């Protein structure tokens, strides 16, 4: 018996510890863990901004920008054109989301997005917990997982205890979402717990119950029902009646107090694409080479400029990395983890004159390829890259153009 107990304890304690700790609903944001192809060929995030990076509890921060589902979405990954959800990557509800929109349409429920289309988004959040958070934009794609966008550090200060979050029901009642309904839940739960415990205690009063009853039940064999006394049966009747009355009573009480309810709401929302003119720039990727010793990406394009102004390339973005042509744009990293290389894009053969077709070569050279583990794409069975080029004309107008194609690694062994 002693060893049995020891065995039980040895088996039990870890199990209980496991159950109390498991499962925590928090999530780590593995921005670098995702395969480079997945980062480059799923969702391109453009101009993601936070309205503020320092705010107090109860204050509002808006995350806004654009995104473009890639036309080169990998075939083996479930498509964003099926089911997707615009989300935000923060550790737990450190903010509450008050509003989120794509092209002006509220994104309360799930939706789908079209490949190659550019969407505007804006997410409005209210600070709830004090801390410094790396806030990421995320699009969850059913079957494929989270497509994580760039992260921005946002610091929340102030007094958490002063956080308020209210809503008004369609019945005109103003409710506090931090505590609404909890008193009722606890009262009923406590009542049920008390009734259940009373039943347990009734049998405990017969203690010792384990060994004597075990022996007696074995002695009596098929006649063991004799162990049940009249008092026991009476108790059974009382508790059964009490239980059924409480269930019916609770149901009637809820119907009286909350007569108007609706089922949980679900179902997909439609987002119409923005009505925008087709871009006048067409590009064709001739060759993409990544030179490993120099951490240098060289790409060669044929650019067709159908606009009536000369254009040049100001930015090349791929997999949340931004390479800026300092001659055209002035973009500085927002914080120490902002993946912007302010002067890392070299452009040869631009500007492209209005109406012209021209060969353009760009070089995106930065250690970010290495540090953000984009170079692991060399070991991919499907070495196709995709990115977005930002063309600017001489009036400052921007045209976003996506390109994609095979990538060839250059190990520095063959002289060029």
């Amino acid at each position, binding site marked *: 018996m002693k060893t049995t107990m020891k065995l039980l304890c040895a088996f039990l304690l870890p199990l209980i510890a496991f159950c109390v700790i498991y499962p925590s609903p928090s999530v780590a944001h593995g921005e670098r863990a995702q395969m480079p192809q997945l980062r480059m060929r799923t969702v391109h995030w453009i101009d993601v901004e936070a309205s503020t990076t320092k705010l107090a509890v109860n204050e509002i921060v808006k995350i806004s920008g654009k995104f473009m589902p890639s036309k080169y979405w990998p075939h083996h990954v479930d498509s964003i054109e099926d089911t997707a959800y615009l989300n935000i990557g923060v550790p737990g*509800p450190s903010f509450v989301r008050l509003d989120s929109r794509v092209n002006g349409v509220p994104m309360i429920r799930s939706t789908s997005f079209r490949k190659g289309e550019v969407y505007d988004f804006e997410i409005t959040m209210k600070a709830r917990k004090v801390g410094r958070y790396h806030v990421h934009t995320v699009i969850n794609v059913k079957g494929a997982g989270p497509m994580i966008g760039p992260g921005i550090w946002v610091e929340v200060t102030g007094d958490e205890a002063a956080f308020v979050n209210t809503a008004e029901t369609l019945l005109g009642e103003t409710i506090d979402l931090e505590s609404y309904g909890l008193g009722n839940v606890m009262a009923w739960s406590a009542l049920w717990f008390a009734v259940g415990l009373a039943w347990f205690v009734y049998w405990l009063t017969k203690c010792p119950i384990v060994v004597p009853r075990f022996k007696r039940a074995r002695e009596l064999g098929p006649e063991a029902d004799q*162990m049940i006394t009249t008092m026991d049966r009476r108790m059974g009747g009382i508790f059964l009646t009490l239980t059924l009355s409480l269930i019916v009573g609770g149901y009637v009480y809820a119907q009286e107090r909350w007569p108007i309810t609706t089922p949980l709401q679900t179902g997909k929302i439609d987002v119409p694409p923005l009505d925008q003119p087709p871009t006048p720039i067409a590009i064709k990727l001739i060759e993409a080479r990544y030179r490993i010793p120099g951490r240098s990406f060289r790409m060669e394009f044929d650019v067709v400029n159908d606009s009536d102004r000369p254009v040049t390339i100001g930015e090349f973005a791929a997999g949340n990395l931004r390479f800026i042509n300092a001659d055209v744009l002035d973009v500085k990293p927002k914080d120490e983890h902002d993946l912007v290389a302010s002067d890392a894009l070299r452009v040869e053969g631009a500007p492209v004159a209005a109406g012209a077709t021209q060969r353009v070569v760009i070089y995106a050279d930065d250690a970010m390829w290495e540090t953000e583990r984009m170079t692991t794409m060399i070991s991919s069975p499907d070495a196709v890259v995709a990115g977005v080029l930002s063309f600017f004309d001489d009036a400052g107008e921007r045209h976003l153009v996506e390109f994609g194609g095979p990538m060839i690694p250059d190990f520095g062994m063959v002289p060029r």
Partner: protein
Amino acid sequence: MDLLIIPLIVLLFMGIFSFHFALLVGDWDYWVDWRDRRWWPLVTPLALTVLPGVFGFLLWDKLRLPLGGTLTILCLTLAAWISRYLNFHLFADFPMNFVWPSTYIGLGLILDCMLLLTRSFFWTGLFGGFTFGLLIYPLNWSILAPFQVPLELNGTMLTVADLMGYEYIRTAIPEYVRIIEESTLRTFGAAVTPLTAVFAGFLNIMNYWFWLWIGYLGTKAVWIRKIV
């Protein structure tokens, strides 16, 4: 002796049951915006009956104690409240009114009282197993109803529970992963709740008998006989 065994049994039930329940019911019981009319009242009784069935058999057969239902579910409830408070509220910062556990103790009481009164596993399965499945929704309606009051957000109607699910951000649980309200039964409109309840009740009769039988096999197993 009892002072040692009973607390150990309680701890054992807390551990096994909450682990088992987390695996099988999980999100349906974690979040108030998962407790729909279709899946939650169907999945829950099927998973919830396992321990009351197995241990109900053992406690009745070996000790003539009608405690299997109530005691196991009491233990589950206690473990669930501790885990929600520590993990979901204190650690993960969700408001407690978004992650409270449902109540099932009444169902355990029904099983135990039926067993005591009929002294028959057959009739307990037929009546108790059925009401166990049937009454999950009405039993919880007293605490769930306020969360299904409608409100409006930016031109969309949703329930309080949906709103909380939207506002309190869960990065790893996007809206579409909720398995709720999906089925052809939706076309029955308001009748979906009673239909699901009756269906769950019938399934649960078999389910309860099955787990009793597993308990019976347990008493026959040699290794258990050696321990007791």
